[in-house]
């Protein structure tokens, strides 16, 4: 019985064993051969690179140089050269040489067909390669590619458009901000690095009916060189119906004209959207940071400090950052929040005072026997009470104060509690 069962099974198992062993052997050999061929191609490319950078090749007349480069690249498989033209991991000059070679070898007509075709990776390669010697149809092809549902195709189109760097390319990219399915931030990143100024193209978008267009126009214009009336044309957007647009406008104004931004930002501190309130704080801090006028900084701090009690964590955090940016001269305005009825405001103010160095300064004074002013001691007392045991421990450790009686006496009288987060 067992033998019959075994007799039926054995040939199957032996066959299975032989098949898997042979398949493994073939796969393993392929891995090694493929790698060896790759290494050989890589060495060849390095060699080509070395020859291409040879001044003697560069000095050749155009036709001779092209044929010399062509002869070098002809030693590589055609499809490899085509793919290399779009490979961002290799040097730009090798890509350029590969693109020129591919256009010559494959023909611009066929590459244009590929660039408008449905075979994704071939389409991407063709778009990249054609950009080195752009035919008239390329912009239309790139416009279609940018609107493609496939993010790889759209992303490649954005890259190539940036590389083209002409006005028509910029128009397509800006159009893509409104219509492409690719995240607009990816297109905006290309526009940020665009090789020509774009303010005249972006400016009309400030009045576009679509909020996304207004948002990106305001955002991208913040780095525009100062042009007459540009900031003035952004100002109305700070009161836009769309919250992200208000935020973008505040940040743009903060970068372009901090003083104008500060005036508008003050009224936006009460905005419904938390990220607009945060942007307003940022704009105010930016204006204060740049102002040499201490009184101005203190006035700005006085308007930011109440935001330490905001119901949103992100706004409270922005307020802390904002006060820190204004520097130690705003300690009084910050310390005023230690008397707030809101716990967040009290511990936020304590944290800002700690990070401004106000607490360390007073503790060092106590430790060294120099009696700080009663006001400074009072601020320290109230800050440590708001900040709790951890803040006191951190302060003592930070200032490396030995058990100085004055410091200990102060801490003892505080009756510190664990502070709630």
């Amino acid at each position, binding site marked *: 019985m067992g033998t019959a069962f075994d007799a039926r099974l054995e040939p199957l198992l032996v066959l299975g064993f032989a098949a898997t062993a042979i398949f493994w052997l073939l*796969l393993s050999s392929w*891995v090694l051969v493929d790698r060896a061929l790759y290494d050989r191609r890589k060495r060849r490319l390095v060699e080509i690179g070395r020859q291409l950078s040879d001044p003697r090749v560069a000095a050749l007349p155009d036709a001779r140089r092209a044929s010399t480069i062509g002869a070098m690249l002809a030693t590589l498989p055609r499809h490899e050269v085509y793919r290399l033209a779009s490979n961002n991991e290799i040097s730009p000059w090798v890509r350029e040489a590969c693109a020129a070679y591919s256009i010559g070898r494959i023909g611009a007509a066929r590459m244009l067909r590929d660039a408008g075709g449905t075979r994704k990776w071939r389409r991407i390669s063709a778009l990249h390669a054609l950009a080195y010697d752009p035919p008239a149809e390329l912009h239309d092809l790139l416009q279609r590619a940018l609107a493609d549902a496939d993010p790889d195709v759209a992303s490649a189109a954005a890259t190539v458009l940036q590389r083209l760097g002409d006005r028509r390319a910029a128009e397509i990219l800006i159009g893509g901000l409104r219509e492409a399915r690719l995240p607009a931030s990816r297109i905006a990143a290309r526009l940020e690095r665009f090789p020509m100024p774009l303010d005249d193209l972006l400016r009309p978008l400030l009045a576009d009916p679509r909020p996304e267009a207004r948002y990106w126009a305001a955002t991208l214009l913040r780095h525009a060189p100062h042009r007459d009336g540009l900031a003035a044309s952004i100002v109305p957007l700070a009161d836009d119906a769309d919250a992200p647009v208000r935020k973008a406008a505040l940040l743009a104004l903060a970068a372009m004209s901090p003083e104008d931004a500060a005036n508008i930002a003050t009224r936006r501190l009460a905005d419904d959207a938390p990220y607009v309130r945060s942007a307003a704080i940022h704009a105010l801090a930016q204006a204060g940071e740049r102002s040499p006028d201490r009184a101005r900084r203190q006035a700005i701090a006085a308007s930011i400090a109440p935001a330490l009690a905001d119901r949103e964590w992100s706004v409270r955090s922005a307020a802390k950052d904002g006060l820190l940016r204004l520097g130690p001269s705003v300690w009084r305005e910050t310390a005023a929040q230690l008397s707030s009825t809101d716990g967040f405001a009290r511990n936020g103010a304590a944290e800002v005072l700690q990070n401004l160095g106000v607490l360390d300064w007073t503790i060092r004074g106590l430790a060294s026997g120099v009696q700080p002013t009663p006001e400074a001691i009072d601020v320290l007392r109230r800050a440590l009470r708001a900040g709790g045991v951890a803040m006191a421990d951190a302060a003592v450790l930070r200032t490396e104060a030995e058990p100085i009686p004055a410091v200990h006496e102060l801490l003892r009288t505080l009756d510190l509690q664990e502070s709630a*987060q």
Partner: protein
Amino acid sequence: MIDPSPGMLSFLHGAVVVTLVYTAILACYALGMGILAIVEASFRRKQDHVEDYESVLESPYSIPVSIIAPSYNEELMAVPVVRSLLQQAYPTTEVIAVDDGSTDGTLPALIEEFDLEPRQVFYRSSLETKPVKMVYKSRTEPRLTVVSKENGGKADALNCGINFAKYRYLCCVDGDTMFAPDAVLKAMTIIARDPARIVGAASFFGISLTPETIGEPSYAGPTTNDHLLGDFQHLDMMRAFVDYRAAWSRMECMMCVSGGYGMWRRDVVVEVGGFSPKFTCEDIEMTFRVHERMLREKRPYRIVSLPNLVAQTEGPSKISRLVSQRARWQRVTLETIWEYRRMFLRPSYRKVGMLGVPYYALFECLAPLFQVVSLVTLLLAIVFGVLGWQSYLAFLGLMAFGTALPTTLAVALHDRGYRDYRIRDLVRMILLGPLDLFLYRPILMWAGLVGVWEWMRGDKRWNKFDRNHRPRAAAVATA
């Protein structure tokens, strides 16, 4: 040869057939996964080659990332790991190193290396954690925050880090894992294509006995360990990420964002309640929980696995430590599958319920038990003459090369994509493939059984293994 009773004979026939059918199903699974992995690897390779990383690097609109690195008694690794995280080539990151109540010199090492000073920081208490003892900020590196807290386990430490995190995406890592400079960049470039849907991402990280070498100036790409156990573990990870997880990712039911390197969207992690300290490990359970929540609420989402090697983590160099580590992995798989058994074959959970969970239940949870039953069955079949030695040897050969095929495929796909190993390393990895069944699988099988036993006993220990011996570290200590 012993004459079996007819009943025994029928049983053995049945058992041998079941063993072969189970093996055949596994082979079909491996084949299907292999095909999907080839498609996915080819896609990612081409995508990687045409991706304009430079524009992501220079873009002010790149999504910022909070990197959270919990550590417990990582005196040796904490500093190089944090340094490798601070060296990430990405526009905006912050690093939150959470010292989970270490009893060794982890915290002092960090304080000294990064010139830390204590500060009180009021953070968002989005998730419950053990109390924070002290927060440190670096005087030299403003992006670094070190949090010292009471010991509560890795999940608790991660949750604590999440409370401090400022940004929308979290990169949760292990405190003993060293990262390549483009680890965050590669994953975030993919995420940035569809940030509304991609809520989690994993990437391949290898096993090394001395992972800190990745951060050294002399580092010239990954190599094998020249240590059998280390290399088998590395191949195991390569197979898991380059073959299987890539294939699962292609099918949109990737079931494990590993703890060694996992990207998560903060809002999603907070919404599901953070990492759970109730489980032995936190990673697979979080992935299951996110799938469960998203599918139950019919929300669009994706969890992806990327094939590029982003990091090296330390693997045990001794069998006993490996058994302990893998038993823990087996235990957490069982805990998770048991917890989410309601998803099993439920069409409302789509591919996750119909493919992912059943796969884990049948081939990951039951694998050790089935392997032992198969082994015993085949031995009994030989003893009772049901199966001849030739058949048995042919079966073993079939299994050896069958196991080697996915390994070799993983090596092939990785090499096609990245070309970073030397040829001699490729040869070594390929040759180790057929030996896996004889030298490595038995260890995993034993670890699996230990894990099942521990799970039945309700064991939840982490079983952290002692760090491997480093000649250089020893030399420094002696000096």
